[in-house]
């Protein structure tokens, strides 16, 4: 009989309304459907993952070394989950990017299921007749792990519905530019896949959009113009249109931008206000921070510029403000910046921020030594 705590065997008639999309899970903060970015540490910073219908803007490091890795993780995660992919890149051939994705380190589900299915259970014999749990869970996993030393096989990449945009099909780039054709291309893809929220079909898949190095010199000359020249409208209209398309469909978008090239900071502010999540990479390559002993274990600073507050008043708060990223041999991680423990004999008890420490002390000028040895 059905008492408190008993599981009822009553089943509701009709199909379940649950949307099951591979590689997606609902958020714990709000009811958003989240997708993984491919890097668990980045997912944690974004509040669990990238919500469907949002744009992540990634400001590239100076030489576009680490931002390309972020892009590859994102695409590789899409391949593993079987999502539709659309990649637009002018700076680098999209075919090269797709051919150099990191290899997955998940073991095949088939290997595990062949071991010991015919064992006679001696203790839990009541469960002998129950059917085994469904195998093949790897495609429904939220986040997969990748190994940067290996490359994903071509046949695995070929299984996924991919569309590449490299500007070659644009006939007259001088008159139309690349932004408008790309926007039309994306819209066509959304309509063909039935991913728009206006379309009543039940959604079984999402699309991952990736735009590499938007607004670089090959896309247009917006990076060098000032706000007063009023030459930004192609780029900003494209971004606004992209946001509208992504919001009204089952898509997620990653856009990387070489913001160090922009002459006027107002341009990056406009793009930041249009995007949902904004992060910036600042690598130490070639800068004087490379020799700073605090940063010697890390490869760059990771700035979280903006987090989205979708359906909430404030975004999920992060417990630290300084983040750094580090490229290990096999993967990239984002960590909190800790100062290493000072265990040397001369412990300097300064409470100032070591990044912007002024030379010389306040009270006695230069005469007071930094360390008093006894």
């Amino acid at each position, binding site marked *: 009989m059905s008492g408190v705590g008993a599981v009822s065997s009553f089943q509701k008639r009709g199909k379940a309304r649950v949307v099951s999309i591979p590689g997606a899970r609902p958020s714990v903060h709000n009811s958003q459907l989240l997708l993984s970015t491919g890097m668990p540490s980045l997912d944690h910073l974004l509040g669990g993952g990238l919500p469907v219908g949002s744009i992540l803007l990634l400001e590239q490091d100076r030489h576009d070394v680490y931002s390309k890795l972020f892009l590859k993780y994102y695409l590789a995660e899409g391949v593993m989950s079987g999502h539709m992919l659309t990649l637009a890149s002018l700076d680098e051939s999209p075919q090269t990017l797709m051919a150099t994705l990191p290899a997955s380190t998940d073991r095949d589900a088939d290997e595990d299921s062949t071991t010991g299915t015919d064992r006679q259970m001696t203790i839990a014999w009541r469960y002998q007749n129950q059917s085994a749990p469904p195998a093949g869970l790897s495609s429904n996993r939220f986040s997969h792990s990748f190994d940067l030393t290996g490359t994903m096989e071509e046949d695995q990449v070929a299984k996924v519905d991919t569309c590449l945009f490299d500007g070659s099909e644009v006939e007259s780039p*001088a008159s139309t530019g690349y932004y408008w054709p790309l926007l039309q291309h994306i819209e066509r893809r959304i309509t063909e896949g039935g991913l728009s929220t206006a379309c009543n079909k039940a959604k079984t898949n999402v699309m991952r959009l990736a735009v590499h190095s938007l607004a670089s010199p090959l896309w247009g*000359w917006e990076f060098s113009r000032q706000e007063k020249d009023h030459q930004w409208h192609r780029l900003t209209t494209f971004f606004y249109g992209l946001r509208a398309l992504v919001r009204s469909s089952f898509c997620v978008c990653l856009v990387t931008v070489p913001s160090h090239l922009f002459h006027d900071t107002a341009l990056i502010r406009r793009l930041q206000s249009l995007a949902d999540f904004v992060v910036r990479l600042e690598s130490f390559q070639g800068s*004087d921070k490379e020799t700073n002993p605090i940063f010697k274990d890390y490869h760059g600073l990771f700035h979280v510029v903006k987090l989205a507050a979708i359906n909430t008043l404030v975004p999920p708060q992060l417990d630290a403000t300084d983040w750094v990223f580090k490229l290990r041999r096999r993967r990239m991680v984002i960590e909190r910046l800790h100062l290493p423990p000072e265990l040397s004999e001369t412990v300097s008890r300064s409470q100032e921020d070591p990044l912007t420490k002024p030379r010389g002390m306040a009270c006695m000028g230069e005469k007071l*030594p930094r360390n008093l040895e006894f």
Partner: protein
Amino acid sequence: MAAVVSRTVLDRLVSLRESPMLRLLLLTDTVEVCGRGLLYCLLCAHLRAGTHILYLTTSLHPAELHQHIKDDDTAGKIEFYDGATDPCGWDSGEPAECVTKPLPEVMKSRCRTGGKVVVVVDRLEHLMLHQDSGQLVRGLHTLAHEGEVEQVVVYCGRDVVCEDMLEAVTHLASGVLHLHHTQPCSCVILVRKPSGKVIKAQEEFSLTPDFRVQGVRPTQKNTGQVGVPADTSASSDPTPESLLAATTFSLSLTDEQRRAKNELLLPHTRVQGEGGQILYTPDQEDDWDEDDPDDDLDI
């Protein structure tokens, strides 16, 4: 003669030992220092290696250039596109095609016919007078990624060309060489490899009359340090005399005492340096980092 292992980036660049070959190389100079010598060095190295050169010249006449870059006894040959004689078409009536048309179109006919080529753009700023900057940049990028083209060398004066063009080409280039007016001539080199490694170097060099680079040496870095310098005061005695005189403790060390302190061998340092080696080869599942998480402990 024994082969010298070149540790300087400039040596590797000019002797074409940089692998993979830099697809788009930007060479800049200023009014004070001329980069033509270094450009000719690079081209002579290419000719000796047997690569053909397609040279688009906008300031010097091909005959003048031929005096300096001789291809009579080399495997590679040089072919000139004359954009210097009459680029605007004042005499002939038609502007020269090689400066007005996009670069890939100009080089197209020659590129497809066998063998690797190197394309040289002499004086980017003159090309900018005839072409739209966006089209020019796209042309350079397309040309650099053409299968037959081994390298595209762009030569310009960085004090003459406008800032955004310089930034645009620097963003796309895999190697940048900025020449500076120092004694002897020095250059700042930036090399971006496809694997993601970025090499920055500042080296000085001199040229021989037959266009070879010699005496390459890294320059002494005397840039102002902004970051926190490493704590070096552990080794020296920082207490000044005034503070020592103010206290009633005897804090200073005599020379004998200082010598004795420095010579003292602590027990744990004695046992270090002995013992066996640990040979470890990481497995497939291991995530072995070169750095030890205990490195920041300084016991």
